[in-house]
């Protein structure tokens, strides 16, 4: 490894020297200049998840979120088109929408009364006679919009770059797992937002959660109190050194933990045995055929995989998890537990109880991760140890049929996947 100071001297605007296929440098987590560059080069360019179409079924429906730290409104206008608007009045820059979700035909800035249609266009400035036509054309003052918006299986993404890879190209192999996630619903429709959401945050860098959501090495340590019932159940076998589970670098920064080889048909048997489960299975067979129906239940009837979609989206168990970078050492997270449209109330209630058991700020698992992130960020203050190794499983990689790099479920293929893409984006 080359000393970072040398490289920095020759490469002022580059940060890709902070990672290699073997390690990450501490500055990637603590340097505000890195964080600022991440906002511009990663969040300012790549496809970022902003909403799910099930939150925006009717004209006028909107949700708000962030692309990096930039506040956005995702709105469906009267012509049913989706718009990703920058939540920033084109006059004095105040945010024009204060709610996380709702229905509105217009967004009015409270500061000086400028009012925008939900497609972003400005109706007219207030007290319009004060503006001269020579200086002011109303069409120049629409809310700014993300130049590219696209959706896959209802997952709406926006890119602040006018050109670049398509969403389909960006998602690549991740689409397979988004399909599995959605296909568990009897008609293939998940409901996002209807069940509400959980929120939590931590005093640490955003990448710690991005890494951790696909880290199969930590559960038997951090989450032992949750997983180990003292009766030798399956839970402690999912992520131990002899597990059959796999971890994968899916390409393009996306990554997967796959517990299905360990789980076998456990979820399928449990799911079909639950009230309403067999009827649900039969609906899936009608739509997908028996083989695919079994596959989706085995996968997502419980927690069959953890998916990271670069840079800040994760699909885990029933949840859509969105990681919001706030400062180099502050991160906030929204969890949207999904319901299955057309599933029985018992099925959906059981999904919610299962989710609450582990996730959210009072869950049996997630707060332990947050405690680790806090400890990591504290430890990163040590300057004499510069690198965090990513060596686990480096020499036990299989090539998958779609170019995936596959290792043991406890290996660090997912983290290497994430940081390879990170370095590509951060190179300039």
């Amino acid at each position, binding site marked *: 490894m080359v000393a970072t100071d040398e490289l920095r001297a020759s490469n002022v605007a580059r940060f890709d020297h902070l990672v290699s296929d073997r390690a990450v440098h501490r500055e990637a987590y603590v340097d505000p200049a890195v964080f600022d560059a991440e906002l511009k080069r990663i969040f300012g360019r790549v496809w970022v998840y902003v909403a799910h179409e099930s939150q925006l079924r009717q004209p006028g429906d909107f949700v708000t979120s962030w692309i990096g730290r930039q506040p956005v409104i995702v709105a469906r206008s009267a012509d049913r088109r989706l718009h990703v608007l920058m939540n920033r009045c084109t006059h004095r820059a105040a945010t024009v929408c204060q709610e*996380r979700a709702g229905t509105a035909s217009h967004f009015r800035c409270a500061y000086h009364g400028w009012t925008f249609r939900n497609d972003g266009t400005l109706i007219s400035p207030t007290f319009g006679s004060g503006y001269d036509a020579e200086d002011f054309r109303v069409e120049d003052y629409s809310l700014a919009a993300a130049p590219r918006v696209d959706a896959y299986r209802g997952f709406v993404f926006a890119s602040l770059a006018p050109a670049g890879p398509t969403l389909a190209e960006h998602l690549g192999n991740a689409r397979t797992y988004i399909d599995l996630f959605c296909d568990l619903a009897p008609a293939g429709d998940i409901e996002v937002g*209807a*069940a*509400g*959401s*959980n*929120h*939590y*945050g*931590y*005093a640490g860098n955003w990448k710690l959660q991005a890494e951790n959501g696909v880290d199969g090495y930590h559960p038997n340590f*951090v989450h*032992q*109190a*949750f997983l180990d019932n003292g009766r030798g159940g399956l839970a402690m076998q999912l992520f131990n050194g002899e597990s059959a589970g796999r971890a994968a670098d899916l390409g393009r920064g996306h990554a997967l933990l796959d517990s299905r080889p360990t789980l076998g048909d456990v979820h399928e048997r449990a799911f079909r045995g639950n009230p309403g489960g067999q009827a649900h299975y039969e609906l899936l067979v009608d739509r997908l055929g028996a083989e695919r129906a079994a596959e989706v239940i085995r996968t997502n009837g419980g927690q069959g995989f953890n998916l990271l979609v670069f840079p800040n989206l994760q699909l885990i168990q029933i949840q859509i998890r969105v990681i919001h970078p706030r400062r180099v050492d502050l991160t*906030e*997270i929204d969890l949207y*537990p999904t*319901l299955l449209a057309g599933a029985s*109330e018992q099925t*959906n*209630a059981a999904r*919610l*109880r299962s*989710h*609450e*058991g582990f996730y*959210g*700020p*009072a869950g*049996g698992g997630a*707060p*332990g991760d*947050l*405690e*680790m992130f*806090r400890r990591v960020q*504290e430890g990163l203050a040590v300057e004499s140890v510069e690198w965090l190794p990513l060596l686990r499983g480096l020499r036990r990689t299989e090539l998958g049929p779609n170019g995936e790099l596959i290792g043991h479920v406890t290996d660090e293929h997912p983290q290497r996947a994430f940081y390879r893409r990170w370095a590509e984006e951060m190179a300039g």
Partner: protein
Amino acid sequence: MNPNGPTAADRSAVEAFLYHEAALLDAGALDDWVELFTDDGVYWVPARTGAPDPARHVSIVYDDKPRLLVRVARLQSGKEYAQEPPSRTCRQVSNVAVLSTGEGDVDVEASAVLVVYETRPNTTTQTIPARATWRLARTDDGFRVRRKQVMLLELGRYYENLTFLL
């Protein structure tokens, strides 16, 4: 329901119970606290205002008695790192209102403003304001909790740790 509404004695009895419950939590006597719940008791921290329905809406905590027992055991296992070292709390239970006194097998309902102050080493003290409601069963051993609902004032807040009990 007592046609004259709650009496001073009703209020006094409810307050004594709620203060006892608060003292158990602040003392970390979680095994004693969980036994205040009836076998069909529920401890509920909703994630939304309005009329949350646990069948359709995610909660922060929705524990029946078996889950609550598991939670209490985990929190005290020494391997729940979000509680290692454990939270120290002190809490205020105030503005206690007896909503209905019930009679016989009918439960007492009460509400209060609950403010929990919580700290752990290396963290700043959290102030957690909430409105709590209790449904209390009358038993030969005094009140038992049939349902405790803690409606957090700050539901949009990005909490770092709510693993301690409210």
